[in-house]
């Protein structure tokens, strides 16, 4: 599954029992891919010493403050690896 710029994606809501780079405040929220950054090793695997780690595409995903917090007129863009995301 890959998500070109402009795609809507939903962040997986789960709270894994290991290191991850998904900030809690975007879990379960839907955002828009604004940039495809590159293919990099998954931090969740690296932190657990899994070799070789999965290498996945990382996306810059933009969320609206109103959606994240219920208020605010700004946006927040978070970098998220592919396995953190699903189609909404």
């Amino acid at each position, binding site marked *: 599954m890959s998500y070109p710029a402009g795609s809507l994606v939903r962040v997986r809501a789960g709270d894994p029992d290991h290191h991850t*780079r*998904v*900030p809690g*405040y975007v879990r379960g929220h839907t955002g828009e891919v604004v*940039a495809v*950054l*590159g293919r*990099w090793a998954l931090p969740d695997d690296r932190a657990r010493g899994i070799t070789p780690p999965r290498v996945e595409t*990382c996306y*810059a995903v933009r969320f609206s*403050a109103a959606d*994240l*917090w219920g208020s*605010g*007129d*700004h*946006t*927040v*863009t*978070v*970098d*998220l*690896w592919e396995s953190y995301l699903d189609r909404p």
Partner: protein
Amino acid sequence: MTGHEDLPAAARTRRLEERLIAAGLATDEEIDAFLTRLYANASPVNGALMVARAWTDPGYRELLLADGNAAAGAAGFALAPPEDGGYQLQVVANSAQVHNVIVCTLCSCYPVSLLGPSPGWYKSFAYRSRTVREPRAVLAEFGVALPDSVAISVWDSTSEARYMVLPSRPAGTEALGAEELATLITRNGLIGTALV
């Protein structure tokens, strides 16, 4: 004056280093060499020179926004890519419509080699938690009062990408060359907590 080694954070850091060494994951020499590499020549002057060049050279501005690592290399500040333990530079441009601000909610990532060691407040829980939630209020506390017509775009640095803001060139600087312009640009301007 209190020495850095007296701070509780320094003691915690040392305990962590000792655990890494005891586990055979790193040696003192490797940690020292990494830190030396990280901070050697790291300075906000580097980022400022890149911004000033982008203000005066449209082709360089285009490169800076499209491929930050190539633009850094072209300015003499070669960056290792993520695959080699470095980072991918993403530059985001301010405009009359958008003001960008950088934060790292998970830790305190930012492009150290181009901005120099990060300021204490950048690592604080207050900055990291409030910037994603109420950036307009945070910026106002830094003295950046933006009209409501300017949208705020917050970038949370959670990956191997490192973000730098390209501030707008101030009005009235048309007569200045890149070298003089670079002296106007501050580290806070490159983070987004100042206009320039």
